[in-house]
């Protein structure tokens, strides 16, 4: 199970809390998923969202506040401070959006914001790309977890660059890695775990499914399957058939 900033987390599934049909469905989806962490956006709800935030606290999972919707270093830093005060946690999922359409991270601003926040005692979970040098800079900035995207937020496209994600895993074998964003199907989540990722963070795929509770369960099962498969040391893919039944000793007909 993943360990983030010295804290053991009970499940490799991290679930967002936005876009559910109702808070009641959200709570049921969390129960069905056994998610260990709930990400929560503070930015727009502000201090008047107490009712919703107390529902999140009642889920009994670790809360990871985020800076969703921030487009600059200053906005992200300010939001992180508000979140720390509000949720009483040094954890922050740092999101600095670089493009309004694709919601892709502004990696330059991200590295700067991560440096500022780490120096201020935050434990930063950066939403980043799978770029090796960007990830290296984030580690230099003090991040001890990396959260590369699978695909753009909410797109449900799965892992756009499995090669890049595999390479990142190989380069940073000891850093907790989370695929964050882009998951649409349980098979995508399983693939991330098969690549050796420590956790998967998703929201839209569950919240906007026709039956969010059933999809939450499906994601949990897929993540468990992927994790087991990784530990079980899968076989290598090969170009030629390798018969599973020995050819020796077959009856000679005719």
């Amino acid at each position, binding site marked *: 199970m993943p360990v983030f900033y010295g804290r053991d987390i009970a499940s490799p599934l991290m679930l967002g809390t936005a876009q559910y049909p109702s808070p009641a469905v959200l*709570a049921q989806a969390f129960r069905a998923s056994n998610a260990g962490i709930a990400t929560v956006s503070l930015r727009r*709800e*502000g201090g*008047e969202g107490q*009712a919703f935030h107390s529902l999140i606290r009642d889920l009994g999972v670790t809360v990871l506040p985020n800076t969703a919707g921030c487009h600059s270093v200053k906005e992200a830093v300010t939001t992180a401070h508000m979140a720390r005060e509000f949720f009483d946690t040094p954890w922050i999922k740092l999101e600095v959006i670089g493009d309004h359409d694709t919601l892709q991270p502004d990696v330059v601003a991200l590295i700067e914001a991560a440096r500022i926040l780490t120096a201020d005692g935050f434990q930063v979970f950066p939403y980043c790309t799978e770029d090796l040098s960007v990830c290296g800079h984030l580690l230099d900035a003090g991040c001890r977890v990396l959260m590369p995207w699978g695909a753009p937020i909410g797109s449900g496209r799965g892992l756009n660059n499995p090669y890049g994600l595999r390479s990142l895993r190989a380069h940073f074998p000891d850093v907790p890695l989370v695929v964050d964003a882009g998951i649409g199907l349980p098979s995508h989540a399983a693939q991330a775990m098969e690549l050796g990722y420590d956790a998967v963070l998703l929201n839209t795929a569950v919240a906007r499914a026709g039956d969010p509770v059933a999809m939450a369960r499906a994601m949990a099962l897929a993540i468990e399957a992927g994790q087991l498969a990784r530990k079980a040391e899968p076989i290598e893919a090969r170009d030629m058939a390798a018969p599973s039944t020995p050819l020796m000793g077959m009856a000679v007909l005719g």
Partner: protein
Amino acid sequence: MTDVTILGAGVMGLCIASELAARGIRPRIIDPNGAPGPHGCSWWAGGMLAPYCEEESADPTVVRLGLDAADWWAAQGATIHHSGTLVLALSRDQAELDRFARLTREYRAVDADQIVALEPELQGRMRRGLFYESRSHLTPRQALTALQANLAAGGIAIETGGTPTGLVVDARGLTARDALPDLRGVRGEMLTIRCPEVTLTRTIRLLHPRIPLYAVPRGDGVYMLGATMLESGAKSRVTARAAVEMLSAAYALHPGFAEAEILELGADARPAFPDNLPRLRRRGGTLYANGLYRHGYLLAPAVARMAADHIINGQIPEFMDEHNP
């Protein structure tokens, strides 16, 4: 005659009063703010009465309870628009349209030509959509005024103070959080614009992954644009972001909206329970009716009927989750 005092003159309170009056009970109504106005969230509503469209995000119960709403309102003298609802998405958001179609019923898939036949000004702008025929919406302020006038004609006025007598029906909306701790506010923001250059004749919903919009024609070139959904009880004024996003979406629907005059910006918080479904609760001499969420005009008639059934016949209706008289 049963003695009943209703607290709150929003859509919930006035519908219960009307339903009781229709069954021979003359309730008192107390609201410190007096007649319906900008202080209450039903003032800012879209007034959509198209239940099948709601199934995209709402429980099927909402559809079932909302099917008779338009007839109830018509009988009360509210003007009902029967032009239907057209659901559209920009070409890059077609996946939203597929999702909406998957989750709802009773629509007709329409192509570009059929869209133009319905709304000629959308020529060349939309490739496909979903059309929900028949009932579509009312104008909330006209509807509330009609209820108030009917009640006044029956000798029922809205008092701004005084001591409740008899059975108390608490229909104070979000203000009733003091007695209903699981009630929360879901903030909504809206705009009213005037744009005679644009002629759209029916409710249009423009789907978008982050900024869904509905535009409701109010006549005389006036359109209501709404509405945001934020997990917040804040009743503070409309944010620049909400206004910019909704206006951008309206502009994407029809560039003619660029020339619109902004008549009004409104924000309030809808009262909702955790499953976003309404509740009736009986505690001693008080009956609570609340939690209409974003379905005020769609659900208030059904909830008012249930409240009246309870008050008159002692029935325990389906949304009564507490019964301790």
